[in-house]
């Protein structure tokens, strides 16, 4: 009660005081400089720069950014655009592959197996491929989890389990990025020679790679489709790696806008990458008879080579003679 009375008195007292002061105010008050007239204004700064930055004394200079409403656009990308990109690319690719499979089925060896094989990928090449591929699959799954997990997986497993899994997924994503990056670099160096586009590729592409009907356009060691995959891996992989590291080492390379942009590139490229890799996996497995063993055992049937990489076979034969020591009879079938 005492407090209340004090408060009331204060209120009344101030009122009286103000009255007194107003009545005593001299006309020159009207000319008083308005101190905000020259002061910085939030809306103006935002309109000019779309961010407000100032000075802070702590060494963490990024905290000098007072406001960056650009986060809103990034949020829109992450929560809406990316879902559409990912959804369309991945589901679209899956749908396309299924339809294609239903129509075309597995591409068989037209002339059957010759029983003679020929080395296509050395053990080193295969190791690099599989290392990169394994990393990619884990990176893809853990990455997709960041985008779609909250919607698809969390309701199923509950928050604790989902967080636990996501935490491990994050560690995996961060640490496996290193072997993945090394793999991409090795792939780039190892197969660069065979992946320079040339005239044959134009013809190959004109004939649609022979994917429709039973056509077999000639190709060297890598046909135009494979070259495309190669360049997608090299460029896409390079991009996801570069942007990924930018995100993994926050503020070493760029400020917050750079990181937002990096995330946009990383996620978009990764989604498309995943979609393309689905096609790659398809063609390397159920899509084409005899293709998997190229990366599996490292050898392919001569007939397979004849059908899909005729020019390469010629090259190999020319280099080593028809009775190439490296061609071996397959194990008894």
């Amino acid at each position, binding site marked *: 009660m005492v407090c209340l009375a004090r408060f009331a008195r204060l209120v009344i007292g101030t009122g009286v005081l103000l009255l007194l002061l107003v009545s005593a105010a001299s006309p020159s008050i009207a000319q008083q400089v308005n101190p905000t007239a020259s002061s910085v204004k*939030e809306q103006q700064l935002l309109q000019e720069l779309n961010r407000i930055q*100032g000075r802070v004394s702590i060494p963490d200079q990024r905290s000098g950014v007072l406001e960056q409403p650009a986060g809103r656009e990034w949020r829109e990308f992450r929560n809406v655009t990316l879902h559409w990109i990912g959804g369309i690319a991945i589901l679209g690719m899956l749908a396309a592959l299924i339809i294609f499979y239903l129509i075309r089925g597995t591409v068989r060896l037209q002339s059957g197996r010759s029983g003679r094989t020929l080395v296509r990928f050395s053990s080193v090449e295969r190791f690099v491929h599989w290392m990169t591929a394994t990393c990619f699959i884990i990176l893809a799954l853990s990455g997709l989890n960041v985008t779609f997990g909250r919607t698809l997986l969390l309701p199923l497993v509950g928050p604790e389990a989902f967080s636990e899994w996501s935490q491990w997924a994050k560690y995996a994503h961060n640490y496996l990025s290193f072997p993945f990056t090394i793999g991409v670099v090795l792939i780039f160096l190892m197969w660069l020679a065979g992946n320079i586009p040339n005239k044959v590729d134009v013809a190959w592409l004109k004939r649609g790679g022979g994917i429709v009907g039973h056509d077999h356009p000639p190709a060297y060691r890598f046909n135009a489709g494979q070259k495309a995959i190669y360049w997608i891996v090299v460029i896409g992989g390079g991009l996801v790696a570069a942007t990924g590291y930018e995100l993994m080492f926050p503020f070493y390379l760029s400020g917050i806008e750079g990181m937002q942009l990096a995330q946009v590139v990383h996620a978009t490229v990764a989604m498309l990458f995943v979609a393309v890799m689905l096609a790659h996996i398809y063609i390397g497995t159920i899509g084409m008879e005899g293709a998997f063993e190229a990366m599996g055992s490292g050898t392919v049937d001569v007939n397979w080579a004849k059908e899909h990489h005729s020019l390469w076979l010629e090259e190999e034969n020319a280099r080593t003679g028809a009775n190439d020591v490296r061609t071996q009879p397959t194990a008894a079938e």
Partner: protein
Amino acid sequence: MARMKFLCDADRCIECNACVTACKNEHEVPWGINRRRVVTINDGKPGERSVSMACMHCTDAPCAAVCPVNCIYTTADGVVLHSKDLCIGCGYCFYACPFGAPQYPKVGNFGSRGKMDKCTFCAGGPEADGSKAEYEKYGANRLAEGKLPLCAEMCSTKSLLAGDGEIIAQIYKERVTKRGYGSGAWGWKTAYRETIES
């Protein structure tokens, strides 16, 4: 129901950093984590203004929207809190936040992020109110004790206001009417999609 907000009256803020150290003191925030900071715009030039900034506890909080593990939530008071048990330290909330509020302790190698930490409006976290576990993870829970955030309570010039949005908006409006100027409620448009007419 009360809807908690912060408001920094830039015409009062003198960059004394009381809000910053009050926060450190109340929650024993470690070196390198700055739940609240004061930014000075046009430093040393005419028109210089300082603004104290922390998590604004946004309406439709962007951090919560983008969190991959859904660990950020809004309480009935409009306070945006998060669970450190669920946080995976991915940094997404930092990309989305317009105010640079989320902070990450550096853990392990190559600048990787630990669990996110940010202003809790002195309202703790998901653990039981006032529990030891809550204090250790999120700091004190003043709201549960009927107190407001210490940064605002200790503000040297009563520049930083915290409390029910309607009331602090009204306080600010009164001030502006009385003194005849006001550079606006910084961050309100971005955080709450509203401005205070002055």
